[in-house]
């Protein structure tokens, strides 16, 4: 039974599916995220957040904050 399952799966070009799956998924999502929806006032850079009497949450990422798949 396992051999049959594997034979079927292998015939479906799994490597191609592995590469394409994230791209197919991304196609259903918007390109940019609307930051205002979170209601959070995002400052750009740590310096803009210093010495305001509250702890700081610094979100560090590759790309930009409004990129959905950053």
């Amino acid at each position, binding site marked *: 039974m396992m051999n049959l399952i594997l034979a079927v799966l292998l015939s479906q070009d799994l490597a191609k599916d592995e590469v394409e799956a994230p791209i197919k998924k991304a196609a259903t999502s918007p390109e940019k995220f609307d930051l205002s929806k979170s209601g959070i006032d995002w*400052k750009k850079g740590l310096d803009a*957040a210093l010495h*305001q009497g509250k702890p700081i949450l*610094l*979100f*560090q990422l590759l790309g*930009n904050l409004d990129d959905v798949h950053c």
Partner: protein
Amino acid sequence: MLFSDKAVAACIRNNYVAAWESVRPVPTVEIDFGNGAKLKRTVNGNIATYLCAPDGRVLDIIPGLNEPKAYLAALMDGLRLSEALPETVLAHHRGSRAVARPRRLDRLDVGKAMVERPVKHALAPKTDAELLAADTEVNQTERKPLIHGILAEKAYRPAELTRRIYKDVLHVDLDNPYLGLVSAAFGGGAYGSR
């Protein structure tokens, strides 16, 4: 997206000054469908959330993508650390460093994992929620102990840690021009060695 979660957003709005910074441009993939339609997406990105005192001293770091519940718990822990003395924060990380869990053995057999992963995925494809849960577990069991070890050394500012956190914890070498993608992109795939 994480910040769409109402509890997470409320905690940040009410208790933190929120800031963001990009450490470098993220690689993008553009697919031209040949009919004028194009699709552009980012690849190989990753994130780190630094929780800092008002003067910029790092209190804690939340690595990678996490389930909202886990992220919220970490934000609350950060608030407690923000009320503690610097020496107490160091002691917290030194004590937490000691409880690091060993790396899971099934992650060590990389070659086997790479062959089997597509088969396992086809047999039991994971939902986004399951993938996020898996990421959260990795963040807590493998990455967080590394962070405790780093923050136990001394009080740091984010800029002092960026490259080290991305390289040693998130396994993204910011100084590598291809962010580690080069072997996959240019290796030739199954035909590369012929």
